């Protein structure tokens, strides 16, 4: 009787197996999306009508090519294209050029990606801080987890006693402050 039971099982599995095979060949005909190759996010949305987000503003500025390259290298373009809201301190090309010779080239290396991310995230805080929102001695919690200290003297905004705000540009997902220096997080100092 055990033999019969075994036989029944075998028969059943055979039936199942043959069925799985046909299901397999069916699913092979389904053109599944290659999700692993889906790169990026909102920065790819085709929209020439809406107000520009912080990334699109940076990309359209000839004074921020280093920053844009660095954001791309650090995989931060997608995050900064999202809903935010962000306050971004955007060093100019000139500001990056003030760093010791070779610093930027070094940071752009694959092995230094985390350092680059850390530095760039030190330039972003969540929330829209308008010029009138800054006050002397204010501490800003930056996206990388460190703080920036604000100085306001005679209406002029300085960060960490060294980096000066030149001007501000409103963006759809926040506000950009053009700054004349690169903010270096405490650990990287």
């Amino acid at each position, binding site marked *: 009787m055990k033999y019969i039971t075994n036989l029944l099982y075998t028969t059943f599995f055979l039936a199942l197996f043959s069925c799985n095979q046909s299901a397999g060949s069916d699913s092979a005909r389904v053109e599944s999306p290659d999700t692993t190759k889906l790169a990026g996010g909102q920065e790819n949305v085709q*929209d020439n009508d809406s107000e520009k987000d912080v990334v699109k503003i940076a990309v359209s500025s000839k004074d921020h090519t280093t920053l844009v390259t660095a954001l791309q290298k650090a995989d931060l373009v997608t995050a900064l294209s999202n809903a935010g809201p962000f306050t971004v301190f955007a060093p100019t090309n000139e500001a990056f050029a003030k760093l010791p010779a070779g610093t930027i080239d070094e940071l752009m290396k694959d092995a230094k990606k985390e350092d680059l991310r850390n530095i760039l995230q030190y330039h972003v805080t969540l929330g829209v801080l308008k010029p009138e929102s800054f006050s002397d001695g204010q501490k800003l919690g930056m996206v990388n987890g460190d703080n920036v200290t604000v100085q306001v003297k005679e209406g002029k905004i300085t960060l960490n006693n060294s980096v000066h705000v030149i001007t501000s540009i409103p963006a759809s997902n926040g506000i950009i402050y053009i700054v004349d220096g690169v903010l270096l997080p405490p650990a990287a100092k």
Partner: protein
Amino acid sequence: MKNFKSKLMVAIGICALAFGFQSCKPKNAGNAVSGDAAAKAYVAPGKYDGFYNFVSGGFSGQMSVYGLPSGRLLRVIPVFSVDPEKGYGFSEETKPMLNTSHGFVPWDDLHHEDLSQTNGVIDGRWIFANANNTPRVARVDLKTFHTAEIIELPNSAGNHSSPFITENTEYVVAGTRFSVPPDNVNGDVPINSYKKNFKGTISFISVDKTTGAMSIAFQLRCPGVNFDLSHSGKLKSGGWFFFSCYNTEQANTLLEVNASQRDKDFIMAVNWKKAEEYVKAGKGEKQTVKYVHNVFNEKTHSATSETKTEVIVLDTKTLKDICYFIPCPKSPHGCDVDPTGEYIVGSGKLAALIPVFSFTKLMTAISNKDYIGDYEGIPVVKYESALYGEVKKPGLGPLHTEFDGKGNGYTTMFVSSEVVKWNIKDLKVVDRQPTFYSPGHLCIPGGDTRSPDPKYMIVYNKITKDRYLPTGPELAQSAQIFDITGEKMQLILDFPTIGEPHYAQAVASDVIRNSSVKFYKLEENTNPFVSKGESETKVVRKGNRVDIYLTAIRSHFSPDNIEGIKMGDEVYWHVTNLEQDWDVPHGFAIKGALTGELLIMPGETQTLKWSPEKPGMYPFYCTDFCSALHQEMSGYVRVSPKESKTALLFSTGKNLAPNDSTIVKN
């Protein structure tokens, strides 16, 4: 034992064969889905569907938009029912959309839709919809997917054979399902005086070529019957419109039995070009009526209601050459015209055949006065003289027909629960497939126009038992997509629908998607209560009316601290969304509001009326997750007793001055 074993082996062998065969068979009675169905309905994440499918919401009163072939729900457009989710019918700006001569009507029953056409081809500008209960027609703008206009229909009840359009969207028609005494006579008459007092009215609503603005051009006064469905002629028959009607018995009770007495009811052919001539020649009677016309203005983001008091009526009994009746078996329901305009298909829902009428033969019969008599003064053409032929034994309970432009009609069979493909020329059935269960309407993209785009057919079913996981006594109605590119129709997907789907429309996505609006331009906003920037926000008191001009932008309201509201105040929150970015609406809700929320599109101003019920502190907040600081997007409004002297103060980002609420004692 050996004998037993060998017998058993044989039995098992047969069993295995049967098992294997049965379990791998692509089709069985309950499922009828073949192996590559999933691939045909599959749209990869991040990919657009090829077609929009606009599906009527039936008793939800709304219209839903799906992608085809994925069946993904893209949008529910509020049309005839309030929608607290979108603030539709709750905001001061949208409330007038639902005004009628009966007052504010918060619900209706949306059955049919028709996409606007130019030269018989879908142009993607507007979609029209009917209100079946309180008779109205709506126009939805397909740039914004918002209801742009609603017009009420006088002399009507149960606007069912609507909102079908002519080939250049010259007119949208509306035929009354329930005949009633006209609005300008005393309707307080015995119900059983139907034959004497009740009239059926057909409305022709003109549509402005550029703006889409609707206006009742004229109405046809017809015999009291039930008009059911309709479709415009095409090409050679383009100047004609065809309406099915039942209850030619003129029963006023137990229609189930009493309206099914006669062998044949009618399809009414209407020469609307002729009717136009009569109107131009001044043959119409000006009738005093009352109906309401509501228009949404995209610049003020507000609707206005206007009451109209006159309509032009043509009497089809005296103006003889507008209407002709064609006998049609057994309470015809669907009334569909093929892409060439030659064939008119009536679907007698109790008939065992589908009659196909010939427009050419109809014209000959009319010119030869080949009549069998008249019905309340309207000539009745001899059945055989208008008939092209009959589809014999197509199935049970034919309801609606759509066309593929390749010479085939597709008819739903309610009673036998199937869809039947048949050849128009030889009237032979080509294929039949079961649907699950009890199909009503069906839709082929462009399937009621001159040029169908016949990749898919969607069938909308009334009963869904066992198709989806049980959800209590009621299950979602079901749409089923068939691939109709081959000789045989292939079921590829079920998808659940909103409310009860009746008719639907579908069109290739590129006809619509490229003109879709991303946001409203703030500089073009002329709402009287707009704040175009935070510097323009304010709180203004006039007696007990308080207007709060509020702005919303990621991630705060301005002002967000307000004091000095008092009991008995009528507070109007005018919220302007300052965003100029696609897909960034903000919401607005306040504790205790006896309304809905506001959902404010970028660049738009919407107003919520609020009358606080008791003194205290009321938070308000953004309901639409807008940003990382969405939870911070909130504010407080302080409500003081009526007699208090709390000053009216407001601010954002800094504290208000001390504000004593001591009650003033006289």
